[in-house]
């Protein structure tokens, strides 16, 4: 067997793998006819394969998969979140936008809890109540924040009351009267207002 060329054994394996070329197969067969040792080796290898092949299908125990899965460490929640974020970039962008928007607007709302009123020359302020005295005419708009407004005279403009009450007996208001109490209304009002100022800005610029 020692004198047999090395490549003969390679050919044997190629033959058993089923990818031997015709010439090599011829060479192998001729060699096997002339060499007893090699013939025996070939025989043994074939028997080995037959032996292994006669094994019935080796199957894992039925609960193997479940057991392995149970023993796996749980994937971190953060990974799931990251995957979700990566999969829905639009939602994330929208959510972030909404978050910041509402945060700033609500922040404004919270900040503005103190009482304030538009300065007009003939308004009377008593604690948190603003009074337009009888016989007086206020020219311009009035905005009252966190306070009440009592109109006894005349207002030549719009009246806006935020978080307060509007009381009038025989008032004359030439503009619109608005009362804003809830957070959402405040939101709506501030959005409307910012748009309105932007518009007037543009109008002024075009003028």
């Amino acid at each position, binding site marked *: 067997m020692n004198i047999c060329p090395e490549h003969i054994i*390679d050919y044997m*394996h190629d033959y058993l*793998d089923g*990818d031997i070329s015709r010439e090599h197969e011829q060479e192998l067969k001729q060699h096997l006819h002339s060499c007893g040792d090699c013939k025996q080796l070939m025989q043994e290898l074939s028997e*080995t394969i037959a*032996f*292994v092949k*006669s*094994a019935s299908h*080796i199957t894992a125990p039925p609960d193997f998969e479940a057991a392995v899965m149970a023993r796996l460490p749980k994937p971190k929640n953060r990974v799931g979140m990251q995957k979700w974020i990566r999969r829905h970039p639009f939602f994330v962008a929208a959510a972030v936008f909404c978050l910041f928007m509402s945060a700033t607007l609500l922040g404004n709302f919270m900040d503005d809890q103190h009482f304030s009123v538009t300065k007009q020359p003939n308004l009377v302020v008593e604690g948190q109540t603003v009074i337009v005295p009888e016989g007086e005419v206020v020219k311009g708009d009035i905005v009252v924040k966190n306070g009440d407004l009592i109109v006894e005279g005349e207002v030549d403009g719009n009246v806006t009351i935020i978080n307060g009450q509007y009381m009038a007996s025989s008032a004359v208001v030439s503009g619109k009267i608005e009362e804003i109490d809830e957070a959402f209304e405040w939101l709506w009002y501030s959005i409307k207002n910012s748009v309105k100022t932007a518009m007037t800005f543009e109008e002024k610029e075009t003028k």
Partner: protein
Amino acid sequence: MYSQIAADDQLPEEQLEQMELQDRIQYEIGRLPDKYRSVIVLKYIEELSLQEISEILDMPLGTVKTRIHRGREALRKQLNNL
């Protein structure tokens, strides 16, 4: 009456022999080094092609062949020793 009809099943001793052979094969395969065992099992028990094995194990085709050759050789030697 039915109890006297010849059954087609294997005889008990044949079944035992079969089981012993199975055990022997499992034992011999189990004795192989890991890297040879995986390719031998995939090739001869799962009956996959060399190409499929190379894809599954993510190894070059040449490596798969070499390991099968050596695994076969190792298995032959194991069987000869007994």
